[in-house]
């Protein structure tokens, strides 16, 4: 029988990066959030946040809407497949965490 950590190979690396995990966790708890809020809640710099958002958008996890006008805003939300991916990833993470806590290495 393998260890519970065998499941780790199935973790989605695009979502699992700590910064991107913080971004997707934020977006999972709401319909959408703007750039400023994401910056405040994750503590990332503008450049870092932009870079992570671009990767998530390229991977189809999030959707970015930019509004023009006097005060341009960037509004970010999870796509439907993205929401499913994040929920599955979160479930797998919790399962792994619980399994790791309960796991006792065998002597052999």
């Amino acid at each position, binding site marked *: 029988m393998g260890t519970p*950590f065998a499941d*780790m190979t199935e973790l989605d690396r695009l979502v*699992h990066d*700590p910064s991107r*995990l*913080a971004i997707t*966790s*934020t977006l*999972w*708890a*709401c*319909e*959408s*959030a*703007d*750039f*400023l*809020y*994401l*910056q*405040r*809640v*994750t*503590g*990332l*710099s503008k450049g870092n946040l932009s870079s992570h958002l671009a990767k998530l958008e390229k991977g189809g996890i999030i959707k970015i809407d930019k509004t023009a006008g006097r005060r341009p*805003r960037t*509004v970010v939300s999870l796509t439907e497949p993205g929401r499913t991916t994040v929920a599955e990833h979160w479930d797998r*993470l919790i399962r*792994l*965490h619980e399994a*790791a806590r309960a796991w006792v290495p065998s002597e052999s």
Partner: protein
Amino acid sequence: MVNSYELDRLYRIRRSTAEYARRRGLYLAAFGLFLGYLAFAGVRENLVVPVLLFAVLLAAVARYYRKNFGTVVPRRDGARFHAFWLIPVLLSGVLVVVTAANVSGTPGHLTGGLIFAVLLAVMGGPPWPGRGHYPASAAVLMALTLAPLGVLTPSGAHPFASADPLWQLLVVGALLVVNGLLDHRALVRSLPRPAGEEE
């Protein structure tokens, strides 16, 4: 692998986001100021000025939050939307209590104290995780309403029964301001300014 500390941080992020709208306590503080202002008979005679001031205050608060914390659209299946079902229940409850008080001849300040205390407790959203100040302030209001404070006044009447100023409204306003500021403090603590961007 995400460790316990990181997992806790992610839970906190999710909770902060889910509760963002409720933690914007300056709206409640502004409403508390408005109510407190209405406690004075001179103000109630002409409502145009206080309503205009309240509108300006709300606009300033909205601008402050948008500019400093950003905007979050809450989930449509979240607790905030489920809470809308409570409004007709609460309104019906208020109607029943007021009718019962009128029939039984209960003093108005007792009825008012009960209604405001229940509203305060419900506003915190039972079971009040991290919002214990709401039931605490409801208990304070109920205690002040029931305490024999009449012995402290020259007329012997309970201060909450006075017509001007409406002490009960003033106290409710003050409690809303305190609760709002505590919510705002929770928001500021949960959303620290990113490093290197302090003013």
